[in-house]
């Protein structure tokens, strides 16, 4: 499995906003080990079979990848953009197989040391394209430009953050 939690970048406004989508598939191995916490309907006596759902940590990771690409793109992917902190993560819904997630990452602040970004994650209805997107999560993130870290540590020159998987995503999305 590749550590890539986005399928396609659909919009990129440099230094401002990136929108990407991910299709949640039952073929993903991790879905078969992670289930919704509520197994019975309210007031019901019969337990329902467990419902596989996408783990929240992977939704946060997808948001971080969307924001990280946006921040990396701002300087031509020369900076090593590392997720430093999840400032806030509020998730209201579960993502289930067949859902399409839309990640919208927006840069709030950016300087030589790092960047702050906010993410909105929405579920697009697979059954009814006319149905408005449902908000799944609001996530605030802080990124560090690794070579400008406050501790003054040195790292290898090669940009190991934006590796082959990211380059493939950029290429197939028509970004690079």
């Amino acid at each position, binding site marked *: 499995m590749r550590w890539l939690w986005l399928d396609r970048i659909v919009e990129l406004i440099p230094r401002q906003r990136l929108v990407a989508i991910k299709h949640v598939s039952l073929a993903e191995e991790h879905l078969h080990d992670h289930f919704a916490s509520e197994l019975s309907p309210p007031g019901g006596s019969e337990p329902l079979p467990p419902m596989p759902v996408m783990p929240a940590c992977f939704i946060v990771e997808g948001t971080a990848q969307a924001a990280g690409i946006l921040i990396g793109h701002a300087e031509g992917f020369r900076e090593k953009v590392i997720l*430093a*902190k999840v400032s806030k993560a509020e998730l209201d819904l579960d993502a289930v197989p067949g859902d399409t997630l839309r990640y919208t990452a927006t840069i709030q602040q950016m300087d030589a*040391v*790092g960047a702050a970004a906010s993410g909105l994650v929405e579920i697009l209805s697979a059954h009814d394209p006319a149905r408005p997107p449902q908000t799944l999560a609001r996530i605030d993130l802080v990124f*560090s430009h690794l070579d*400008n870290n406050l501790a*003054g540590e040195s790292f290898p020159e090669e940009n190991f953050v934006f590796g082959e998987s990211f380059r493939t995503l950029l290429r197939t999305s028509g970004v690079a």
Partner: protein
Amino acid sequence: MTHEEILGKVRGVLVDALALDEDDVTPDATLFGDLGAESIDILDIQFKLEQAFGFKIAQGEFFPEGVSQDPEFVREGKVTPKGIQVLRQKLPHVDFADFERDPQMRRLADIFTVDTVVRFVANKLNAGEAKATA
């Protein structure tokens, strides 16, 4: 902006950045010891201060950089007099009087209190006003 107004906004920033209760954020609380901040929180706090007060913070302006790695400034785990002199110049919002009596590097984090942040903001706002009226 009055001292109380600045303290109120700084308290909001720290509550948000460090997930604290407002009552925890007293003027003499240390950022790293009492409030549980980690080094990466400094970047988050800087960004939130910029948003709250509408100014830009230059690299190394709020928190020291490049001091601990320099053998001229830190020797045998202690900050040298020259190191303290440089820190004073770089960080005029920090009170080094107590630290100077026992300048062990591990104590450096303790000098950053809520009041330090308030003084930093007040200095920045005053400098901005001075520029605006010049």
